């Protein structure tokens, strides 16, 4: 079973990837829900612009997204120094890797949640308002529970996407073992060195396993939503 045993570097990459994906989803979920709600329920000037902006990371070359993140949150970026003064350094850190993954996963999460919110019948929300529920309570007690499977599906898809993020991450936070080296960047690093086929195979195996599991889970959740 020696071919299955992980080297410390590989193990670090695996756990870091899981941590980065988890943090990026947990942090972006409330924002994604808010943006999805605004896109699904409100009509305002600039609706199309916001929609395009949210979806931009999906179509932009990831290296461009990574570069823009560097411009914004790098040590000499716009928000970098003030954040650093608060003790939060993003460039070349694992927190930065989570940010890059979150930005890349954001459009997918928003999409899934928006679909779920649009599937909630506004007539039910109206009925709840006649029963004394303010708009905040309507959201908490009616809209949210009814769209929960979709929100979870969005989280799972976002998790899978964050897990595999490569381009923006390596541009923004580089490829530092133990700090920013995720599964994807570890595979990239291993491929640069001859004779690492076994390690590459293991990492690819994990990648496929995690992504496939996440997709299956999101499919199950989506189906549960349809059954409602």
């Amino acid at each position, binding site marked *: 079973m020696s071919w299955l045993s992980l080297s410390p570097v590989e193990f670090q990459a695996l756990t870091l990837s899981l941590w980065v994906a988890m943090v990026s989803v947990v942090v972006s979920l409330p924002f994604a829900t808010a943006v999805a709600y605004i896109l699904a329920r409100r009509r305002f000037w600039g609706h199309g612009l916001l929609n395009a902006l949210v979806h931009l990371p999906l179509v932009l070359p990831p290296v461009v997204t990574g570069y823009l993140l560097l411009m914004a949150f790098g040590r000499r970026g716009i928000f970098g120094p003030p954040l650093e003064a608060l003790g939060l350094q993003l460039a070349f850190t694992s927190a930065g890797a989570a940010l890059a993954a979150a930005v890349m996963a954001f459009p997918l999460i928003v999409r899934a949640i928006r679909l779920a919110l649009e599937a909630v019948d506004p007539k039910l929300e109206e009925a*709840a308002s*006649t029963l004394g*529920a303010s708009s905040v*309570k309507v959201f908490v007690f009616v809209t949210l529970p009814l769209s929960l499977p979709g929100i979870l599906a969005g989280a799972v898809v976002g998790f899978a996407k964050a897990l595999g993020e490569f381009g923006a991450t390596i541009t923004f936070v580089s490829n530092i073992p133990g700090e920013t080296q995720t599964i994807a960047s570890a595979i990239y690093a291993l491929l640069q060195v001859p004779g690492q086929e076994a390690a590459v195979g293991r990492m690819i195996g994990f990648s496929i396993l995690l992504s496939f599991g996440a997709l299956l889970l999101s499919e199950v959740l989506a189906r549960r939503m349809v059954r409602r």
Partner: protein
Amino acid sequence: MTVKLDIQLKRGGFHLDAQLSAPAGVTVIFGPSGSGKTTLLRAFAGLEPIDQGHVSIEGADMSGVPPHHRAVGYVFQEPRLLPHLTVMANLKFAQKMGRVGAGQSFNEVTDLLALRPLLERYPAALSGGEAQRVALGRALLSAPKCLCLDEPLSALDHGLKQRIFPYLERLRDQTKIPILYVTHDAAEMARLADHIVLMHAGRSVLSGPATEVLADPAAVPFLGVRAAGTVVAGRVMSPDPVTGLAVMGFDGGQLILPELAQPEGRKIRIRIAAQDIVLASEMPKGLSALNILEGVISDLHQGQGPGVMVQFKVGRTLFLARVTQYSAAQMGLVLGQRVFAIVKASAFDPAGIGT
């Protein structure tokens, strides 16, 4: 308790301009589809913004108040139960939202509407009639100062409607709040209404106590010829000694109702359609009809069609009969004339007999 509405609003080409005042009891808002009944009700509940006018409940101005602060219980055409909650949680939803106040208790409402066996179920496991009863109970338990029922029976088949009517009648007799009831079904209106507001093309054209509006020949164009007819309120008497058939006594006389199945002494109301009454200028003889009433013509109204609406009084009770212009001329019908009204037995639809 009284609610007052004075609402003007525009939606595209549609213009709503309606006023009404509803005391405790059932006020039926009647009119054809597209006459603005539902919009009026929605505007009252705060679900539809209004351009001008005001809404007041018990004298308190509610015009700018959002729906969750209006305390208007609303039952929609479809039940709109929250699918992720049990019947119990649906019924207690308003309470959870902080709506508490004087009103019927949970037990009273579940008894009134026979909801006890349904409490643990989810809405998906309810039949149409059950779901609508839960919706009614949920609205009652929201501590409402007024209840809006927007064609609550329209999605149900005839048999289910008949089973829900007794609940609505009990509700009408037990609550002391105004109930605004929208319908385009004349039988439903006749059975439940204490007061009637007639809507036509976005306007409230006629309103008043149910017996008066239904007996008003001027209301016929808005009701439609088929829906025209009066409501006679009375009490179940002892059976007719000759025929053994059930008898209903009213202010001015008696009617034999073959299909009446209510206990003696019970207050009932029946609807008699104008087209089910035949008039004679002399006491008819040798007829199969059981009911012949003697009355005096109190109003005559010639519409656009070939018919004439004749309002006549038997004692203090008003009736409407529809005859052709030709017959009216032949009989020389004039105000104050004595007439004999033959009421066909088929006029008494057992489904139209209310309590």
